[in-house]
């Protein structure tokens, strides 16, 4: 028996060595969005973990919960996450609360300017607190076959869009247009390109709320006019319903996000594969502008593995890795990746995506954006459901936005 003792002893020593502090320290916890963007980062994270012999834990959270988990972690400085993936409108709030670490070096010039802009704090400064990982910006989806069939002009102006929606609706017996007008983010996201195209904006040059302006009211009137060509009940629609109508071939046009492009061309998901074309936002009085919705990577101040975390985010956003992420379905944030001939051949929407992304505008860079978007979205949704007039909706929204700003002075 005595002769057999060294084996368990050796095993125990080896196990203890395996659990030593050094090995335990080589780990990274990453919070990602549960969706195509997050699964791409998840795959990259495991690859990085193997390369650096580091244990990687990826926490996938649905969009609605991701912000609250990250916000709570950053506020209470728990250090639960070493890297966080965040939607760009969340950035001003999270960075203003002092929860994010400044980048050790400036991002290179290959990143698109619109994507880099939302990683700076203060906005417009040269200080970076995040790196752009997913180059999301809205695109205009439309049925090219029906536009050709009825010889309709390109949907490059909103008045053409309205005319085409009425024509297609009457002749094809499908909905000419479909949009999101559920309260909060959905209604605001679909309204912003109209607001900007009609020459309006959320704030004026002095930073005061400006949604009761003539331009803004006119933009909302136009949205409601477009809504007459949309399926009934669109005032409660979110991305799922909009995309379901496009995929089923029951609607001809919509504003949508690049994550849905692959499904539109997939015959197992779409009844109209290859019939949908992707274009930049239509214009009106001002040139068409899409809303930016980039996903960023940042390192919380409380992370106890900052060096490894920065190593990972620079690695995940370099050109080689971004090529792989693009192959897996993520819109890139680098010009060189968008212009790669192989990828352009594979992803036909890349030129339109690049054009839209270059012209895209971020949502106002205020820490109160979530609250403002909610109040504004409720008014927009009420107007679209017919509960109140566009004038009343915009005056109500203007008042509420002013109250939010006053409360947070």
């Amino acid at each position, binding site marked *: 028996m005595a002769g057999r003792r060294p084996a368990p002893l050796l095993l125990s020593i080896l196990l203890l060595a395996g659990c030593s502090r050094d090995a335990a320290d080589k780990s990274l916890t990453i919070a990602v969005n549960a969706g195509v963007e997050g699964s791409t980062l998840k795959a990259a994270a495991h690859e990085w973990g193997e390369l650096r012999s580091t244990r990687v834990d990826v926490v996938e959270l649905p969009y609605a919960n991701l912000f*609250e988990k990250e916000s709570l972690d950053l506020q209470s400085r728990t250090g639960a996450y070493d890297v966080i993936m965040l939607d760009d409108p969340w950035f001003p709030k999270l960075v203003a609360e002092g929860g994010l670490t400044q980048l050790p070096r400036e991002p290179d010039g290959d990143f698109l300017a619109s994507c880099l802009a939302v990683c700076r704090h203060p906005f417009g400064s040269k200080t970076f607190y995040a790196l752009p990982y997913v180059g999301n910006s809205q695109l205009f989806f439309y049925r090219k076959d029906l536009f050709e069939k009825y010889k309709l002009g390109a949907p490059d102006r909103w008045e053409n869009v309205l005319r085409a929606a009425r024509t297609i609706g009457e002749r094809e017996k499908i909905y000419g247009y479909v949009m999101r007008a*559920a*309260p909060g983010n959905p209604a605001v996201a679909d309204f912003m390109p109209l607001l900007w195209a009609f020459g309006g904006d959320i704030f004026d040059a002095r930073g005061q709320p400006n949604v009761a302006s003539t331009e803004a009211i006119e933009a909302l009137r136009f949205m409601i006019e477009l809504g007459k060509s949309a399926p009934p009940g*669109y*005032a409660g629609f979110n991305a799922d319903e909009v995309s379901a109508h496009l995929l089923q071939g029951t609607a001809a046009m919509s504003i949508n996000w690049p994550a849905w492009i692959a499904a539109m061309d997939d015959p197992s998901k779409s009844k109209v594969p290859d019939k949908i074309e992707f274009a930049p936002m239509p214009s009106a009085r001002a040139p068409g502008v899409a809303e930016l919705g980039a996903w960023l990577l940042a390192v919380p101040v409380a992370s106890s593995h900052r060096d490894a975390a920065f190593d990972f985010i620079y690695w995940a956003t370099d050109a080689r890795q971004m090529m792989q992420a693009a192959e897996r379905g993520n819109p890139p944030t680098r010009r060189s990746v968008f212009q790669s001939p192989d990828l352009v051949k594979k992803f036909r929407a890349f030129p339109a995506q690049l054009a839209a992304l270059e012209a895209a505008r971020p949502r106002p860079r205020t820490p109160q954006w979530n609250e403002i978007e*909610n109040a504004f979205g409720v008014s927009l949704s*009420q107007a679209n459901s017919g509960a109140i007039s566009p004038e009343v909706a915009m005056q109500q929204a203007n008042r509420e936005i002013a109250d939010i700003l006053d409360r947070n002075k």
Partner: protein
Amino acid sequence: MSAWQMTAVREMRKTRRIPPGLIWVAPALLVLATLSIYPLLYLIKVSLTDIHGFTIAHYARLFHDRSFGVAVGQTLLYASVALTLEFLLGLALALLVDSLARGRALIRVGILAPMLLPPVVAAVIWRLIYNPEFGVLNGMLRQLGFNTANLTWTSGRLTAMLSVILVDVWEWTPFFFLLLGAGLQAIPAEPIEAARVDGAGYWRTLMDVIMPLLKPTILLALLLRSMDLLRIFDQIFILTQGGPGSATETISLYIYRTAFRFSNFGYAAAMSFIALMITMLAARGLMRVMKLR
């Protein structure tokens, strides 16, 4: 006094100081203090604090916050309509099944099925059912010859509240059925037989004999359900997110947004405290009404 007498007196004093019952309830009190009383006190503290220190600003804001007023009104509307429908349907089903001679167990399992689903799953199922274009409900109505062009259920300004209430009624009527059914089975047969011998018909027996004997069960069911209804969150979050506009916004939804989307924990705590007061008042009112009758 001898030594043993002094020891006995000391023991008696000790026993008098710590009532024996207290030792037995101490673990439960500790759990209550940790899980309920401390969080409640902490909630009150947060509601009276901002970054500058003590404040009553959060409570003052409640008086002129239109959205909170709307949410309170809609929560009360939702709770009262759903509670009434669930109680009446649950009672009717319980009486019906109780009167059956055979097959009670099978029918009971069938009726209880919706309650066994997690509310989130039930809400997702109903979201698909309510879809105006592709949903089963409008599909069936179209088959029956109805024009469903403007029947948008959860997206309609007038139909949204009705739609979310119907989902609650579908899921939670079985709760009343279960409790009231158990209550009916516990009623002794003698008073009912005596009433019938005295010539009372079904309706008279129900109102004068069965209902008074069922009152404690009814009160318990109404109390438990009304507290749940006033806290409604999950179904509405999945079905409408409070929309269209704010047509289905409830207190819990508004508190959730204020705390976790806008990071305004002080105001959310003040609203939570008021919501707790509303729930307690509603429960107290309900108990008083039931006792009076």
